[in-house]
């Protein structure tokens, strides 16, 4: 008996030690680059290019941030990013929720085939359509505008999101919808006033993830935008590097400012996002 208790305690201690050792090593790998990024953003021009490398500068230069935002039209480009990612995310939430609702609730002929098509398109590598989508948008006269970056979100909004929301709608009780229908509410009204409010956590998860992915999209803006004043932040940052090759402090300052909105958004919506993420992946 004594021996047994002893072994259990010993193994509990070793496992805690292993947990901490691996976690600390892994966290260092994640955190050190971020600390280095913040440190570099605060370095003077000469401290950036000095050896040995300092992680955090002795005299932080907070003025780097304002200078970085003047070297490129930073705020203008941030506003562009807000517009593109915001309009895109709203469209994604609305149009994918509509399709998902039809798939989950309105079982009519042909719905199975639609669902199969949607599952298959999840596996379709989007970049394959890069060239031909470009030709189509150019033909429509949308080259140089935000339309190619926004309109597709309003028409479907990504098959993965449709799939996620369908799974979520299936978990909702039908009674409320039926009651609303009996009270004479039409399908649109039922959808907007009864179904969507119940699905708020899943909608928030889809919206946040879609906003962040559009905020960070590089290839789309790279292909469709050609004026510096129209650039979104990722394009602006990449162009920044092309001009000021060794100005790492300003580059890191601008990059840091550009990721802040997403981090804040995540922290605000963290619970929903993690839950939505879990729903997507555990119910296949």
């Amino acid at each position: 008996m004594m021996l047994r208790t002893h072994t259990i305690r010993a193994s509990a201690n070793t496992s805690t030690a292993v947990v901490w050792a691996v976690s600390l090593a892994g966290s260092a790998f994640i955190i050190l680059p971020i600390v280095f990024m913040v440190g570099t953003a605060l370095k003077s021009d000469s401290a950036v290019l000095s050896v040995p490398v300092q992680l955090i500068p002795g005299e932080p230069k907070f003025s780097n941030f304002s200078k970085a935002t003047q070297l490129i039209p930073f705020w203008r480009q941030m506003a562009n990013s807000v517009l593109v990612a915001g309009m895109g995310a709203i469209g994604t939430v609305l149009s994918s929720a509509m399709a998902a609702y039809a798939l989950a609730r309105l079982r009519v002929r042909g719905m199975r085939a639609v669902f199969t098509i949607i599952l298959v398109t999840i596996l379709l590598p989007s970049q394959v359509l890069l060239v031909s989508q470009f030709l189509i948008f150019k033909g429509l006269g949308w080259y140089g505008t935000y339309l190619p970056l926004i309109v597709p979100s309003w028409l479907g909004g990504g098959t993965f999101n449709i799939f996620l929301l369908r799974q979520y709608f299936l978990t909702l009780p039908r009674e409320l919808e039926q009651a609303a229908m009996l009270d004479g509410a039409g399908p649109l009204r039922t959808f907007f006033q009864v179904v969507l409010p119940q699905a708020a956590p899943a909608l928030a998860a889809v919206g946040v993830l879609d906003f962040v992915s559009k905020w960070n999209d590089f290839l789309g803006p790279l292909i469709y935008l050609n004026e510096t004043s129209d650039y979104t932040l990722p394009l602006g940052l990449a162009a920044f590097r092309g001009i000021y090759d060794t100005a790492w402090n300003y580059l890191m300052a601008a990059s840091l400012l550009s990721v802040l909105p997403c981090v804040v958004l995540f922290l605000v919506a963290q619970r929903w996002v993690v839950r939505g993420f879990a729903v997507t992946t555990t119910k296949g």
Partner: protein
Amino acid sequence: MVRQSQAAKLSGGRRDPLRRRNQLVAWGFLSPWALGFVLFVLGPMVLSLVVSFTDYPILRPAQTRFVGLENYETAWNDDLLRHSLAVTLLYTAIAVPADLVVGLVLALIMNVRARGVAVFRTVFFLPIMISGTGGASVAVALLWAFVFQPRFGLLNAVLRFVNLPPQLWVASTKQVVPSLALMSLWSVGRSMLVYLAGLQALPGEVMLAAQVDGASSWRRFWQITLPLLTPMVLFNLILGLIGALQTFTQAYVITQGGPRDASLFYLIYLYRNAFTYLDMGYASAMAWILFALTLALTLLIFRTARKWVFYAAEPPER
């Protein structure tokens, strides 16, 4: 109204006006998706297939002509295309398994009930907050470009600190692909989260029974936990594969495909053909080749998945 709908349910007739109305409502809800699917997925797929059989210099569209399989023949004999495919596959072969294994190990550890674990989970999730679930962003690529910088970068500073020789990282033709794979591990939190969701859905009674029967934790992992997690492994494998084959941003921003084409990923080469050389026909053929390759690999994985993915008996959903 009520009686009518009940009657419709009972008779189940096809020509019922209510049923017609339902059909209309359903397609109404689906119409934005259907329009988008035709305009932005199906249309482009057909178009790119057609364009891939032509010589289409986009600046002189009048000179467009049908060339049959010529673009595919050119691709077959294009050494640079072959090279870009090799680069992409090498990267995939390193980055995807690394992500699968490290993500799983981290998830197992983050699933232990110990002090501080919640903090570590947030730390591993930080890169996802910064760059999203879609792989590297420009900001992250710029950060790592400086982390890899041989003279002033973080990695060599760490190596010097522990008395190891500094490396060239992305500036070396041999190290650039493994370096980018190392960078991809920074976002391992995505697959970790998928495994964690799976771990938390594990049936507790099974684990407890095994523990009571005296199965060692090692044995419990190989015989119970891992088999129950195989659906998550499959999910991460497929997503990781599709993502890795489409690697673009980090290579474009950090190395521009260099040094000496050593990180010329397939999509970088495709981009060059389409938007630098403006050869839309050849680029479309390249897109279809990548599509075929991705499809073949995905199908191969699904085929073998029947043998190694374990699906617990669940009541049917519908």
